[in-house]
């Protein structure tokens, strides 16, 4: 997705230089929210101020919005059918496999820091056994980061 954005914004429309794009991208990745939306906010802002931000966000979200509306309007009518249910019974293990792959990839990058892994386990159990809202572990983790000075 990012090469796509880069080609449109830096190479074709020349709204940003490569350096500006990289800086914006790094901020877009560290702020919460979808990276594509954050990048759109940033690029729009640079090009046309607040109006630019709003127009870019609209452009970046509209395709998914319309596709899901279309899909949902059919899906919610037919989801009870056995064919549909069995398709998703098969698809779910694949989703789980993809997500486990993602955990392993990210976990590997943290392997150099055992503290990170221990904290990750504790946070995992906090959500599972104390049924904490996951937003609390975002705050707890962030706070620990501020304290840990590492």
């Amino acid at each position, binding site marked *: 997705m990012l090469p796509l954005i880069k080609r449109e914004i830096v190479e074709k429309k020349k709204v940003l230089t490569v350096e500006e794009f990289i*800086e914006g991208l790094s*901020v877009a990745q*560290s*702020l*919460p*929210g*979808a*990276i*594509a*939306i*954050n990048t759109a*906010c940033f690029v729009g*802002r640079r090009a046309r101020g*607040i109006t630019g931000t*709003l127009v870019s966000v609209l452009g970046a*979200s509209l395709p*998914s*919005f319309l596709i*899901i509306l279309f*899909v*949902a309007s059919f*899906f919610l009518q037919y989801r009870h059918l*056995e*064919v549909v*249910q069995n*398709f*998703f*019974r*098969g*698809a*779910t*293990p*694949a*989703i*789980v*496999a*993809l*997500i*486990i792959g993602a*955990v392993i990839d*990210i*976990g590997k990058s*943290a392997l150099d820091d055992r*503290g*990170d*892994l221990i904290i*990750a386990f504790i946070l*995992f159990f906090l*959500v*599972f056994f104390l049924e904490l809202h*996951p*937003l609390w572990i*975002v705050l707890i*983790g*962030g706070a*620990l*980061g*501020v304290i*840990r*000075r590492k």
Partner: protein
Amino acid sequence: MIYLQLFLAFLRVGFFSFGGGMAALPLIEKEVVDTYQWLSNGEFLELVALSELTPGPIGINCATFTGFKVIGIWGSLVATSAFCLPSILLVTLVFHSLSHFEENIWVQRFLRGLRPVVIALIGIAAYSLAQKGIKDWFAVGLGMIVFIFVYRKKTNPILFLLLSGVAGLIWYGA
């Protein structure tokens, strides 16, 4: 009031979803399945699969779908806007001090602290979906096969998601 609930739920998701769409899943699940019961466990699983199969950010897909299911097109509009609002506010806020923001020691430490959080969140997503959706040995085996092909051999995940669904049709009956 349902519109306000949709708005606040997805505003929370937007504000706290660090580290990409998969890490946002536990937040979305908490709001949509546990707190407000807008979707059943089964519907949530299906939504995650649909989000993977369609283009676009998972957060947008989930907001649009949930809003639509709960109260129609206006619901989707409210939920999706609420999800995007934190991005708009925060980018606007840091825009004039980008380098300050990035070099600020507290911001750096906070973001550094989120590394284990993202691991935990994606782990929670995997565990929770497995708990809800993997109920027999066929599903376990299917998951392992997909894992080997996608993770070890780097085959296209969407293709395997579709094939896995077809395998479901064949095994459980069409």
